[in-house]
């Protein structure tokens, strides 16, 4: 073989190898979806996807597999986390990029990155010993501290790094000219931030929040540890509608993790079906984030 032919051969092989590595992740996503969906098929066939999504009763011993209560649990805890976490994250992002002196930013930014690296089971422990006892102090009938409020607080801290990081990047990417233009017109720093910088960074901030949503929906172990895990449709415990957050609940993810170790037959398949629904939900959330980001980049 001449060296020329050998080199073209290597060239071609390497191209293939690199392409296969790149395609591997696509393939893995597909495989995960296919195999989960395959295991979920018996449940979808026997119970029906409509019945699963609309029924609030989950009683595997009774052959009742409605996951609406868990959808509500996941939805509410995510909503709560967004309400608490987004202002905190946005404040952090604006503070770091516009206000903090360099040395302060140098301390705060790594701490936030550290927050992202803490294992979620540790968040769960923290929630159990700190947040739950706090929440328990709210006087309400049947309030044990375990429930949606505690879970929302824990989750808010967990999604903070995601939202803060991406929002900070969005705020930082606002051209300096906007800021100078605003200041030169006699705007104060805060007026400039609220009227020019945040509006200009809005597409990035929205996609940061949506990515945070995706993360929140997928969180499992920390939620199991603080949310109470009762399969009930959350309802307000007092006359105040906000007291719904003192209710116990169970998330879609928690449901799978708690029961999969002993489930068999249709029960097991129903848990896989829950996984498929969760998968689709998160995929929708993430692709909408991507869409928003692209739309923002274009305008």
């Amino acid at each position, binding site marked *: 073989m001449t060296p020329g032919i050998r080199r073209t051969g290597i060239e071609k092989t390497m191209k293939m190898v690199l392409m296969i590595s790149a395609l591997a992740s696509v393939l893995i996503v597909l495989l995960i979806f296919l195999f989960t969906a395959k295991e979920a098929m018996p449940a979808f066939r026997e119970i029906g996807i409509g019945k699963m999504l609309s029924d609030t009763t989950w009683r595997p011993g009774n052959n009742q597999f409605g996951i609406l209560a868990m959808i509500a649990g996941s939805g509410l805890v995510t909503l709560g986390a967004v309400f608490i976490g987004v202002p905190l994250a946005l404040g952090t992002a604006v503070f770091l990029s516009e206000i903090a002196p360099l040395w302060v930013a140098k301390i705060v930014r790594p701490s936030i990155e550290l927050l992202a690296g803490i294992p979620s089971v540790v968040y769960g422990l923290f929630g159990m010993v700190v947040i739950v006892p706090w929440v328990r102090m709210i006087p309400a009938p049947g309030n044990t501290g375990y429930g949606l409020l505690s879970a929302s607080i824990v989750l808010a801290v967990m999604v903070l790094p995601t939202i803060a990081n991406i929002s900070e990047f969005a705020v930082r990417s606002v*051209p300096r*000219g*906007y800021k*100078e*233009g*605003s*200041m*030169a*017109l*006699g*705007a*104060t720093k805060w*007026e400039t931030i609220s*009227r*020019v910088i945040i*509006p*200009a960074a809005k597409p990035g901030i929205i996609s940061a929040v949506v990515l945070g949503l995706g993360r929140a929906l997928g969180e499992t172990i920390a939620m199991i540890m603080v949310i109470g895990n009762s399969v009930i449709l959350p309802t307000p415990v007092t006359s105040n509608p906000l007291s719904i957050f003192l209710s116990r609940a169970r998330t879609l993810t928690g449901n799978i993790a708690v029961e999969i170790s002993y489930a068999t037959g249709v029960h097991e398949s129903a848990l896989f079906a829950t996984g498929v629904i969760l998968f689709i939900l998160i995929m929708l959330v993430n692709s909408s984030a991507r869409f928003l980001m692209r739309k923002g980049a274009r*305008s």
Partner: protein
Amino acid sequence: MSKLETEVTRMKAEDYCLFYGNFRALNNISIEIPTNRITAFIGPSGCGKSTLLRSFNRMNDLIPGVTTTGTVYLDGRNVAQEDVVELRKNVGMVFQRPNPFPKSIFDNVAYGPRLHGTRNRSDLAVLVEKSLKRAALWEEVKDDLHKSGMSLSGGQQQRLCIARAIAVEPEVILMDEPASALDPVATLRIEELMNELKKNYTIAIVTHNMQQAGRVSDYTAFLLTDENRAGNLIEFGPTKQIFTTPSDSRTEDYISGRFG
């Protein structure tokens, strides 16, 4: 030929020095900006002409580590003791790169007035129209006021920025190489506009383009760095005099294109 002695001084720098940390960027500058005239700051890159311009509305305050000595005056008042918001309302600025906000044309022009308390929609509409007319942009955009300011051409964007600066009714407009990012036709329109604007405003312009300084300005200041890279004011006088009979040989060398 115009004479400085007969002019009314609008702004003034006196023994003004500016430091970035320990580095002296401006050295002992004393200059007067006459009312309703166009004053050009020329000089090679890095001579401090933009820094000097930004001293008049205290934009250098935004840069960490900047300290100054000496005094800058607006109408005889020390600007360092003025409320910076009030100062910048009186001394507007147009930047090198057109920087309209990602908002509608209307909201761009209304931005300043809203900040300073004009909320009434019809008052704002009157002000926006007046400002856009003064900036010679009204005819081109009057039917598209809701469109994004970013959708305009570069020259139109720069006139929008001029309208935005005018809308807060300043006394002085500072222009930092306002045409350097524009094509020759758009540049000409900006220059014509400046001639129109000087009837109502006092204008100071930084330019690296000597023909431009010669065409538009009434007075010219030539700045140059010394051996320590600090910017010094070499010569200041009526533009005609600076361009025809400069008293300093360095001015002559620069004007005639021997360096810079």
